[in-house]
């Protein structure tokens, strides 16, 4: 088997696009400032550092998208986890944060798998409830919102120049790749995404698999929340809002089918990198916010037109 056929088309094109972004950016900086800032290891490490938060969130999102579901509760799961971690503080805060992830994942999973409410609307409701709970928490009085030592360690600090958030991202990635490719759970997830009825008839306990996927998604969200809280040195209410649509976009840019059942984890990493690099390069090029949004949208459509077109329905 050749290397090209092993790495599938979306990932290859995605990697090519990353090179293209960096090349265009470098041409721009060379002509205006005479430096190739985009190729410096410092800059690239900084992008990985920032990209890790989106990468971790998108990794979780991919788990539910593989099943053909979606999790709209990610923004406030992330924010709630981080806000509780800072409000309680210390190791107990971090444990609470993980507990929030587990609980939200279980509730989402139960609603989607056992009550069979469409995930789109159930997770939307859970998101609103979490928002409400956090407004209650911060409304009457202002709780502690400065990041704890653990969060700073995860989100801000570096060892030998490598940001810890990148290491966390790598660990999360390794775990998920292991789950997806080396465990029955991973196989079942792909099976359910393709045809839930078939998986059920083959004896897969599909409802438990769905719950597991939602738990993984929420856990990723709170881990990203911990790290992001550390990076920005505090937890605040709308901190997760900027991660919902980009994380879905990252998963889809990586070649995962939004209807489920198809997609490789490496694609999601590439997708997250594309989004982070695109935003960063455009802002260094002093592109206005308006044009950045337009280019961002156009890139998603353009890339999907190349490799992610659906089949024509004709039977």
């Amino acid at each position, binding site marked *: 088997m050749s290397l090209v056929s092993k790495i599938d088309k979306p990932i290859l094109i995605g990697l090519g696009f990353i090179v293209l972004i960096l090349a265009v950016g470098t041409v721009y900086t060379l002509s205006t400032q005479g430096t190739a800032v985009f190729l410096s290891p410092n800059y690239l490490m900084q992008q990985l550092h920032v990209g890790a938060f989106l990468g971790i969130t998108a990794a979780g999102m991919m788990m539910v998208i593989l099943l053909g579901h979606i999790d709209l509760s990610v923004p406030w799961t992330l924010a709630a986890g981080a806000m509780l971690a800072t409000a309680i503080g210390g190791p107990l805060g971090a444990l609470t944060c993980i507990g929030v992830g587990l609980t939200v994942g279980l509730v989402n999973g139960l609603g989607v798998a056992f009550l069979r409410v469409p995930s789109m*609307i159930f997770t939307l409701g*859970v998101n*609103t*409830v979490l928002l*409400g709970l956090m407004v209650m928490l911060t409304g009457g009085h202002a709780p502690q919102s400065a990041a704890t030592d653990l969060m700073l360690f995860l989100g801000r600090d570096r060892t030998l120049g490598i940001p810890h958030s990148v290491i966390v991202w790598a660990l999360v990635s390794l775990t998920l790749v292991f789950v997806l490719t080396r465990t029955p759970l991973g196989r079942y997830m792909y099976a359910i995404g393709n045809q839930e009825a078939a998986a059920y008839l083959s004896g897969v306990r599909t409802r438990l698999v769905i719950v597991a996927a939602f738990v993984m998604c929420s856990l990723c969200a709170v881990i990203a929340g911990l790290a992001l809280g550390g990076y920005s040195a505090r937890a605040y209410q709308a901190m997760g809002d900027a991660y919902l*649509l980009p994380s879905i976009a990252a998963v889809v840019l990586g070649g995962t089918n939004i209807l489920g059942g198809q997609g490789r984890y490496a694609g999601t990493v590439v997708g997250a990198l594309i989004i982070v690099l695109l935003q960063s390069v455009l802002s260094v090029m002093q592109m206005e916010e308006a*044009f950045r949004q337009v280019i961002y*949208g156009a890139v*998603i459509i353009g890339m999907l037109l190349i490799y992610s077109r659906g089949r024509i329905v004709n039977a």
Partner: protein
Amino acid sequence: MKTLRFAIAHNLGLVLAIGLFVVLYAIYVSMHPNYGMNVVLQNGNEALALILVGMAQTMVVLIGGLDLSVGPLMTLVNCFGSIVMAGTGGSIVLGVIACMALGAACGFMNGCIVVYGRIQPIIATLATGAIYLGLALFLRPTPGGRIDGDFAWAFTNDINELGYTYGWWEDLGWFGLIPLQPIYLILIVVLVWLPFRRTATGRGCYAVGSSEAAAFMSGVKINRCKLTAFTLAGFFAGCAGIYLTMQIGSGNADAPQAAEYTLRSIATVVIGGTSLYGGSGGVIGTIFGALVLRSISFIFRVVPESSALGFVASPLLQPFFEGVILLIAVSLGAARTFRVRNRLSLFT
């Protein structure tokens, strides 16, 4: 009798949404200290934009998709409207028409990307949503613009005020107290939705939502149906943008607001009894779905602080209860899960 029962069974979602709205609104009316037509007017003002955005979402959900660009499109039309509706007299009418055309054109573009680009609606509209928001920011980098005050006042008020402002008619008695918002809705439903529902394309949209392959085999023009549904969705979102412009009198490329409208529109569609899997429901249910959502927040405003339920009156608790009620409402539909004999029938 039999036909009535059949009609109810066939529109259970719609009936439930109307029932829920009537109950919630009755609670609100009974608690309101001085209820009157002016309160209806205020309620209509707060609800209309959400209703229209919900109607836009309904069109795409009907064909089995999801539109994440309804909020941004509303925002874009709002910013565009704050420019083209800024004149006086006849130019405002042209501006309104231009806004409707922009909405429909953007919806049509969504449709083209979905139909000819063969990209899933949710992803295509995620991307176009970013583009529309970008364009809105381009038109209004900072909130601003000012549309004609008389116009904005007269057309977001009741029939009497409309007459006074332009000197068209004098006091019309009780008739003049009717707010304009329900009239807009009735006009849109009677002139756009009901005729559309009866055309071959309108029926085709339901067929496509139920089963695209079956619709294709039956000779339904799938592409035309999808394009029309997206164009109508854009038109409705455009109407929401126009109303928002009249309401706030200026343009604001507010990204969080756009996202909130998009997410709420999904909730209104579901509460209104339209299936997220497509193929059943309609915009009339969505109107009541949006009214249900708004009624909930209205009620929180009038709960007396001293009563037994006074603690819920705290504005801090409102988002929490809204979420809980939404979850309960959608979980009610899960009752069938416990009644099925063969669990296989759940995996539709």
